[in-house]
């Protein structure tokens, strides 16, 4: 990795972020607190320096994020000085929906997908930035940088617009929205190398530490609070673990690792033999599950 490569990646992402600022009526940046969001936030700061970020950041809080994530989110908003909106689906709260009682698919559907649609409608945002990358998953390889959503936030593969050069068609009708992915052309390795180079603060869960975990379905699940009931035979143990991706805590599996510095994380990532989404339980729901979730409005 060198400066020229980062200059190129940065330049493209910043161009995309500015294009939205210049053409959208009411944009918002979705902030998931993860490493990709942290990079996207840094790029937004750079795009508008010396001015502030001219749009709010919004976190869809499922109520099941790691406690360290929420603390980090609040600290970052204070330090960087952006406007933070946190939204939780009131229906989900009223019905007590969670991943353990209702299963990962239903929980994600209500607390993430439905919540996101509600929040976009509530505030009237017409364009929402997301930190998704094309290298994450096969169906994302065909995602546009500017992804159009029909009224009701539906993604229709056939209705997507061709994207030529750096010319983005941002015209929409009332009720339609656009999801914009400034990190489309970044890879997981790029993200880590950039975090190290720019010294970007990230949630401590990415670094290896002794944490209470249980083994479930062959994966390490962290016990973040008392809401995780133990199955018969499961015994909490303390292990040196870290996370490659962060989501809702019972749905994000940890990996055993001794990487406690960014250098060690980068080295581990470059030598990884499994993809990062392996720790995401949502992807294993069935063939084409990500594609189906996306059509329903998942990010």
């Amino acid at each position, binding site marked *: 990795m060198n400066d020229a*490569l980062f200059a*190129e990646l940065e330049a493209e992402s910043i161009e995309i972020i500015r294009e939205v600022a210049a053409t959208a009526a009411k944009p918002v940046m979705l902030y998931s607190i993860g490493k990709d969001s942290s990079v996207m936030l840094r790029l937004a700061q750079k795009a508008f320096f010396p001015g502030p970020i001219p749009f709010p950041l919004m976190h869809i809080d499922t109520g099941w994020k790691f406690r360290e994530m929420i603390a980090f989110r609040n600290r970052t908003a204070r330090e960087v000085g952006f406007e933070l909106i946190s939204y939780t689906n009131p229906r989900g709260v009223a019905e007590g929906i969670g991943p353990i009682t209702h299963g990962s698919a239903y929980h994600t559907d209500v607390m993430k997908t439905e919540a996101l649609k509600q929040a976009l409608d509530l505030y009237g945002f017409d364009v929402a930035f997301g930190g998704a990358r094309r290298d994450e998953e096969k169906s994302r390889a065909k995602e546009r940088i500017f992804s159009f959503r029909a009224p009701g936030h539906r993604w229709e593969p056939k209705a997507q*617009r061709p994207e030529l050069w750096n010319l983005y068609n941002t015209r929409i009708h009332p009720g339609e929205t656009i999801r914009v992915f400034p990190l489309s052309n970044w890879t997981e390795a790029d993200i880590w190398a950039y975090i190290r180079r720019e010294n970007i603060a990230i949630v401590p869960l990415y670094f290896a530490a002794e944490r209470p975990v249980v083994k479930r379905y062959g994966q390490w699940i962290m016990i973040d609070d008392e809401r995780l009931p133990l199955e018969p035979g499961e015994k909490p143990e303390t292990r040196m673990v870290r996370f490659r991706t962060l989501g809702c805590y019972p749905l994000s599996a940890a990996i055993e690792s001794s990487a406690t510095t960014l250098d060690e994380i980068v080295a581990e990532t470059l030598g990884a033999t499994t993809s990062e989404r392996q720790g995401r339980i949502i992807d294993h729901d069935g063939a084409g599950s990500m594609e189906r979730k996306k059509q329903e409005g998942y990010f």
Partner: protein
Amino acid sequence: MDTLRFITCGSVDDGKSTLIGRLLYETKLVFEDQLEALKADSKKFGTQGERLDFALLVDGLQAEREQGITIDVAHRFFATPRRRFIVADTPGHEQYTRNMATGASTAQAAVLLTDARKGVLTQTKRHSRIISMLGIRHVALAVNKMDLVGWSQFTFEEIEFDYRRFAQDLGFESITAIPVSALEGHNIVESGSAEMPWYEGASLLQWLETVPAKPSETGQPLAMPVQWVNRPNHGFRGFSGRIASGTAMPGDKVRISPSGVESRVKEIIVGHGTATEASAGQSVTLVLEDEIDASRGDVIAAASHPVESADQFEADLIWMSEHPLPPGRPYAALIHTKAANLSITHIKYRLDINSGAHLAAKALGLNEIATVNLSLDRPVPFAPYKENKRLGAFIVIDKLTNETAGAGMIHFALRRAVNVHWQALDVSKAARAELKRQQARCLWFTGLSGSGKSTIANLLEKRLHADGKHTYTLDGDNVRHGLNRDLGFTEADRVENIRRVGEVAKLFVDAGLIVIVAFISPYRAERELVRSLFEPGEFIEVFVDTPLEECERRDVKGLYAKARRGELKNFTGIDSDYEPPQAPEIHLRTLLIKPERCADQILQLLRS
């Protein structure tokens, strides 16, 4: 380390997906869990028996996996210690020309796949013409499936010879032919295949690692389209954008196009700090020494090489919409950061992408490519696409559906606007109307055939005439007997029909008359175009709103019956669309009010 963006062209049958899958696999970009999924998929969907089907690694969307074809542009990533790669994987069939153009627009090199058993096919030529048009200069001709022709040197050299002869006029700087087998993995990563000792050149990956990636724009004079004006407070004003060509340094003298105002670069902001220089490809914010006005769409360029502005161009155009392009229809356009209204004034010729022949064309359909003249409603800073992609590329947007309908590349500016000056006349429109003691107006009646446009128009003109007003009525049928007798009823001809009548109405309004126009004028876009010819308040859209069933029931001229029998083609309401006005000045619901009362309503509005 740098990034190379390249495109792979070829059809599924040529083994394109297998080739990309293998590149990912061999560069260790396939993780264990993905490999497990691949093994399972290979059993389920695979075409390679017990072996791994690498094509399944890259065919993403479920629908196309089931159909076994690639229907969109997919972006894949892999890296070697020397370079980082972004592959645009696009389908090869003719109906996907737009996808290939999309993939090629951001690529610096192309890998063109041919089947060694088939050689240079029509589709190889088609792909070559598209990538050449989009400005790709380095091509690898990967002659695949060498295993199926017995690793024959003769076959390979014959194909290479054929291709070089064909491609000599396409402007490629380099063509490298490589004999490969994607399935068996020969000459993909390592060179020196044991089966093809006669080939001493680079493997495909070695070629990808060494082909020039740097765009040529770096060595040119500075030009940067203003993307966003950064004004966080009164003390700071910066112009943000991505540098299209050249290098900027503090102290550089610059000129803004199209205003022509000059200043100097005071400061260059990159990220969170200032830089001593910035060059093509970087996103920066320029602070100028003087407080000058520039907005999104303007171009800041070296004062010694200012960027030209024009409003009429010759360009290549790739049509991407299912809805054909009729010349004359107004579209929205985006060229670098500048938005404008665009219409195609003339299709010079359509390119037969398979043979290279130039064909006459009246309209342009999906995936067709043409050289056209076009006109914008305002001057736009530009450069020819061949010299600067960022300043010479544009997209065409349908104003109704907002779809990206076309993509274009500017050849050069037409000087028409400069040569034909507007003749300023001393007696003005207002003076002419004053003499007639009236206000010049254009009353535009739109509605289905048989809706009552002519009846109401006729009543209205009689009343105005009786009031001593000077009027003239342009009737659809009458005009088609003279001025527009060369036009039929295709969409392209309908657009031209309305354009001409709009211009005539404008001349009459200029003469101080109250002009009544009674035309079906089915398309919203054309009515909006005509409206834009007039000053605010001059154009009054009258929607004669009679339901289709009622028009058909009346069928005064017997035309609906004919259309229903199939004897009349492109009849509005039957097999051609009518787009009702969204906000007409006057909306006449003829089922509820008599024609006389309709005329009254219009008179009231004219008097108020």
